[in-house]
């Protein structure tokens, strides 16, 4: 005989899961008790939302499914923001929640919440398990669904009696059979041909790369395609890292907070090749304007994204790696020099020199400097707000990853994401950059960092305001700073110290760079607080 809880753990082992991020509670105890007896590592976060963010950081750093676990009711509810964040950024997660006993479901008992119902609109799929015997199939399907096609979070809600129930034996299904779920991974040859024909006539082509390129592992293929054809590359925020920032063919991030040259490029192109980008409103504010001048080839694994936000001339549904491979085989094209030269001129023309303030760190130049101090494969987790824009536009990425909550814009993402990334990739440099607003949303994770002794460097841009909204208030609300002033910013160095974590406070770029240099030499976590002037803009 074998219990449901044991089956759940065996399923995780079958899927090669080595780490779960979670928080316990009464009705998930059977599962944690079984997990305790295995070599799967359970990382205790300090709030459930961070379990999902950590699993997300883990998943992105390792290109595997991240797993997070919470109890019923409040535990599961706290996961929600993390699940929705992963959904918006297409991160493969399996989220396991305990649930009250199945025979009292719907009676509003202690710590009961309809979590499958609550998460309906931002999970890729969800299960409420009603029978112990279903567990192996549900887990097999969940991992399959989370990691294939367009990845996303899958929720498995398991009532405590189902975890305690027993069945004769454990058999893990070898394959899944979901009749309604067969994602297309190969691009249709006709469409690929049409795309290449369209490219032939183009004088000003541009590749716009999104997160899908990274998810698919198509980075080398994209670079090859760009190099073979000479087509310049712009990226969305989620696509940062598709090319090294210093690659001559890379122009920069597009969007309302993007680089001028990149925006000019997309708005002047006659052909836009969208690669795994969903043309979100922050990336392209007015897709209709782009379409007026340009044909659009849209490559995406999710057919629903094609034509959703931007009118498409040639749609190609498939996995980016495969489609780019197909295109590379047949492509014969060289980008006209006038176009490449034009983009180069824009790049040079619009270099801005950031404003500095005495007694403060200038964050843009510091982030640029920091890039050169990190090893090439470093993982940078940027939070949400001005710090995110500073990082997006100034972090010179090489062969590493840039993790941020691009779709949902969830403050507090960077620190727990860095926790997951560091556990996934212990030998890499992992840095979290946040503001004093976002840091205060997840600084409780300093406890997790200390407990797991994770060598994570946290940089807090302390400007004593909620900078992004503050800036918005300057532009649209007559500088009336309604509820955006953080009047009592605590001494973060003291807070770090309380957790036994080293820390320093920098008031100039020279100081910040010196501290950064020494913190990167150490193998211990570090919190570097940078004093940033509240008037420092995101641009």
């Amino acid at each position: 005989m074998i219990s449901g809880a044991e089956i759940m753990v065996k399923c995780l082992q079958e899927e090669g899961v080595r780490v779960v991020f979670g928080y316990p509670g009464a009705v998930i105890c059977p599962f944690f008790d079984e997990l305790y007896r295995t070599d799967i590592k359970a990382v205790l976060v300090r709030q459930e939302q961070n379990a999902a963010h950590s699993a997300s950081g883990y998943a992105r750093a390792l290109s595997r499914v991240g797993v997070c676990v919470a109890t019923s009711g409040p535990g599961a509810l706290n996961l929600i923001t993390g699940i929705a964040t992963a959904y918006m950024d297409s991160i493969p997660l399996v989220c396991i929640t305990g649930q009250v006993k199945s025979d009292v479901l719907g009676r509003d008992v202690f710590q009961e919440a309809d979590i499958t119902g609550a998460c309906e609109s931002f999970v890729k799929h969800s299960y409420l398990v009603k029978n112990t015997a279903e567990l192996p199939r549900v887990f097999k399907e969940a991992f399959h669904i989370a990691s294939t096609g367009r990845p996303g979070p899958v929720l498995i809600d398991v009532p405590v009696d189902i975890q305690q129930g027993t069945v004769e034996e454990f058999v893990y299904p070898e394959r899944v059979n979901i009749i309604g779920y067969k994602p297309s991974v190969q691009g249709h040859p006709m469409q690929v041909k049409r795309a290449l024909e369209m490219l032939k006539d183009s004088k000003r082509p541009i590749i716009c790369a999104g997160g899908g390129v990274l998810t698919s592992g198509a980075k080398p293929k994209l670079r090859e395609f760009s190099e073979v054809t000479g087509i310049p590359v712009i990226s969305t925020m989620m696509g940062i890292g598709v090319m090294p920032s210093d690659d001559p063919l890379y122009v920069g991030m597009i969007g309302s907070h993007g680089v001028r040259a990149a925006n000019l490029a997309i708005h002047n192109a006659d052909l836009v090749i969208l690669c795994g980008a969903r043309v979100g409103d922050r990336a392209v504010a007015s897709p209709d304007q782009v379409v007026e001048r340009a044909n659009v080839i849209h490559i995406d694994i999710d057919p629903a994204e094609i034509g959703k936000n931007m009118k498409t001339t040639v749609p190609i549904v498939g996995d980016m790696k495969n489609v780019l491979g197909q295109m590379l085989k047949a492509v014969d094209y060289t980008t006209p020099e006038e176009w490449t030269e034009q983009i180069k001129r824009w790049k040079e023309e619009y270099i801005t020199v950031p404003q500095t303030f005495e007694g403060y760190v200038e964050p843009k130049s510091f982030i640029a400097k920091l890039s050169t101090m990190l090893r090439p494969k470093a993982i940078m987790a940027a939070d949400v707000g001005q710090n995110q824009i500073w990082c997006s536009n100034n972090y010179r990425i090489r062969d590493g990853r840039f993790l941020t909550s691009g779709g949902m814009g969830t403050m507090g993402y960077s620190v727990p994401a860095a926790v997951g990334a560091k556990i996934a990739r212990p030998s890499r440099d992992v840095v979290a950059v946040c503001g004093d607003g976002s840091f205060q949303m997840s600084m409780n994770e300093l406890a997790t960092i200390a407990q797991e002794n994770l060598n994570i460097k946290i940089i807090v841009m302390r400007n004593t305001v909620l900078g992004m909204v503050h800036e918005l208030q300057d532009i649209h609300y007559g500088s009336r700073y309604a509820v955006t002033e953080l009047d009592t910013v605590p001494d973060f160095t003291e807070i770090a110290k309380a957790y036994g974590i080293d820390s320093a406070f920098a008031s100039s770029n020279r100081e910040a760079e010196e501290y950064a240099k020494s913190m990167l030499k150490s193998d211990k976590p570090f919190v570097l607080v940078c004093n940033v002037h509240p008037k420092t803009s995101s641009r």
Partner: protein
Amino acid sequence: MKYTLSVLVENHPGVLSKVSGLFSRRAFNIDSLAVGITEDPDISRMTIVAHGDEYVIEQLEKQLNKVIPVIKVRTYKEGEYISRELSLIKVSCPSKQRLDIMKISELMGARIVDVSVNTMTLQFADTLEAFETLIDLLKPYGIREIVRTGTVAIEKDSAISRK
């Protein structure tokens, strides 16, 4: 523009809420949704009548296809399908009008399923257009209550074979 979508789904609890939730979340407007088990007890069919422009319907189809337990989505074109809706209509009917209503009922192909001193209840299974005609005819007598199932539709083999 009105569209009729025929959606095959796995017959599991929770599937209906996954599909109906999609409509509210993506701000799609639907006129009716009818669901029932098919010849295969593991599969249900939903017939959805929705309105919107081509973009909306294309999105609706694509988003429906993303729902994991959705097996197949078809949008029927005009003339490709037969659709019916079952309705029960309770009409005010003093005895002196009984014959009139019986005549209308006979003319339209409705069945009288209940008669009382002051009312008569008709059962009507036909197209939306026929339903509207019947309602127009009955209105002068005073309609007390209408209960409708929503449209169900099936592909018309004769039309397809003619192509």
